């Protein structure tokens, strides 16, 4: 069974909940319109279509758009070497969707990481703590409105470095016709 056939089967089973499979560079992507159903779709993919291996879960911040979050699941069927990508959107007000931990246990740390970096919560996750940042850190650093330079926090005993001076030449610049200081993305406030 090819990736496209698998995607078609999901489409047949769930109808309007699933978008038409899109293909880019030989990879098949299907979008799920209702994030609440992610569990049901994943369970079907694992039980009926043999997608027993969850490669990765990633998240996207579509800053300035509604819905703001996209959660991306990469599924793989180890036995017949098929991969598909499953995407679902989550609105900013809600920022929550069901955990797929009961289906693949590897989702545990992936979901914790997404919570840590983006602030999207997974309902039904038994242990949704920060994983890469420390407990009590107040921000979600991978959000687009979080500046590259970082933000100071009230936490005691945490070392912060200042924004590096521009004289020695910035390390990273964004291309464009402006001067060196305004091309430095760490100084730029994403809200502007």
């Amino acid at each position: 069974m090819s990736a496209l056939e698998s995607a078609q089967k999901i489409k047949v089973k769930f109808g309007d909940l699933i978008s038409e499979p899109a293909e880019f560079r030989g990879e098949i992507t299907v979008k799920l319109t209702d994030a609440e159903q992610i569990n049901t779709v994943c369970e079907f993919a694992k039980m009926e279509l043999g997608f027993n291996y969850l490669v990765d879960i990633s998240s996207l911040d579509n800053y300035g758009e509604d819905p703001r979050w996209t959660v991306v699941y990469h599924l793989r069927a180890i036995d017949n070497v098929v991969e598909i990508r499953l995407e679902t959107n989550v609105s900013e007000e809600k920022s929550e969707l069901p955990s797929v931990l009961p289906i693949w246990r590897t989702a545990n740390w992936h979901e914790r990481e997404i919570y840590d970096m983006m602030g999207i919560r997974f309902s039904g996750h038994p242990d949704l703590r920060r994983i890469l940042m420390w407990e009590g850190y107040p921000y979600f650093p991978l959000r687009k409105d979080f500046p590259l330079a970082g933000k100071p926090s009230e936490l005691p005993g945490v070392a912060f470095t200042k924004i590096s001076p521009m004289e020695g030449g910035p390390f990273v610049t964004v291309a464009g016709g402006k001067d060196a200081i305004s091309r430095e993305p760490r100084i730029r406030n994403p809200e502007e």
Partner: protein
Amino acid sequence: MATVQDIEIRDSAARSAQAADELQDMHGEKMVLNMGPSHPATHGVLRIVLELDGEIITKADPDVGYLHRGDEKIAENMTYTQFIPYTDRLDYLAPLANNVAYALAVEKLLGIHDKLPPRCQYIRVMCAELARISAHLLGLGAFAMDMGAVTVFLLSFTEREKIYNLSEAISGARLTTSYTRIGGVMRDLPPGWVAQCQKFCDEFIPALNEFETLLTRNRIWVDRVRDLAVISKEDAIDYGLSGPNLRGSGVEWDLRKKQPYLCYKDLDFDIPTGSVGDCYDRYLVRMEEMRQSTRILEQCIKKIPGGAENKTNEPVNVADGKITLPSKQKVLSSMEELIHQFMLVTEGVNCPPGEIYFGHENPKGELGFYIHSKGGGTPYRMKIRSPSFVNLSIVPKIFVGTLISDTVAILGSLDFVMGECDR
């Protein structure tokens, strides 16, 4: 001077209650032990909070993130080419393999990953396999050293030194290689490199045989690692393990065979798998993988297009001025090349909008890059699927019921690196 006097309780019921209390203390009290973040057996800065009942672990909670540098955030703010040096610092025991994985991911987004010049493909395969041997040698050496076999560590570092010399010869750096470019490699192999690589292969197999005599049938080694931390086939898949840890559990999955990239289709090699899924199997799989990598290297040396010194001037970069930098001579003499060079340096390689995932069989497992592009020279979002991070997530399961002295063996057999885990 104060004296201590035991008071005997006369009441027999009270006496038995006191005895029960003492018994309770003996059985029930658990100790929480903090291991790491700076512990020689945690290969970096992994911290594990262990709950112990005597010497037996009842609960293990790994705490990662001490080496978090925000690589994914950094990637969003620079061009695709500028991120290559950051990939060196993911799995810093195999920087060449990370370079290859990242370049292939961006090339997949560009749609040129299967149109690379043949010589470039062979060079990249050789880099990836050298990196695999180097990473496995360190993993093996550190594993053995944690168990008290220091000799293996010293011997394996002698061999690693030769690989460092090879990587210094091609890239100018021993650790921070940054050898690949989008659409090719930094430069062609230097003169004499292939012969040096052949010499390494010739010397490596006898050295590997020597390591085997020290460990594979060593009674102490086998007693300590056999039947320890058994991971079943189902668990390995369920927890998303990859690389030697997955194969050690008997799952025949190798991206080089299952989703062949570069020129792996034309090369002959086997995938070793374990039968039990214990630490010993993972060790055996790594040993065999090094032999297979040497086999691949020797085939590459024979088959590399253009030969060792590239007498026929085979290209090593894609012939597309919008992707790879033109030669300096052309930049100075031709208008179009000058424009291409200027655009590539300032704006980066212009990638089409779209999203791709590329998984590369790295020494530690599947290193994947998910790139979401909105067009232009920088990714909108780049997620790094690091094998060490995923492999470590099984620790709370396999640690339970083992002895505290076994933790170092299990960690050694999982073979992770924190630079990649924490990103």
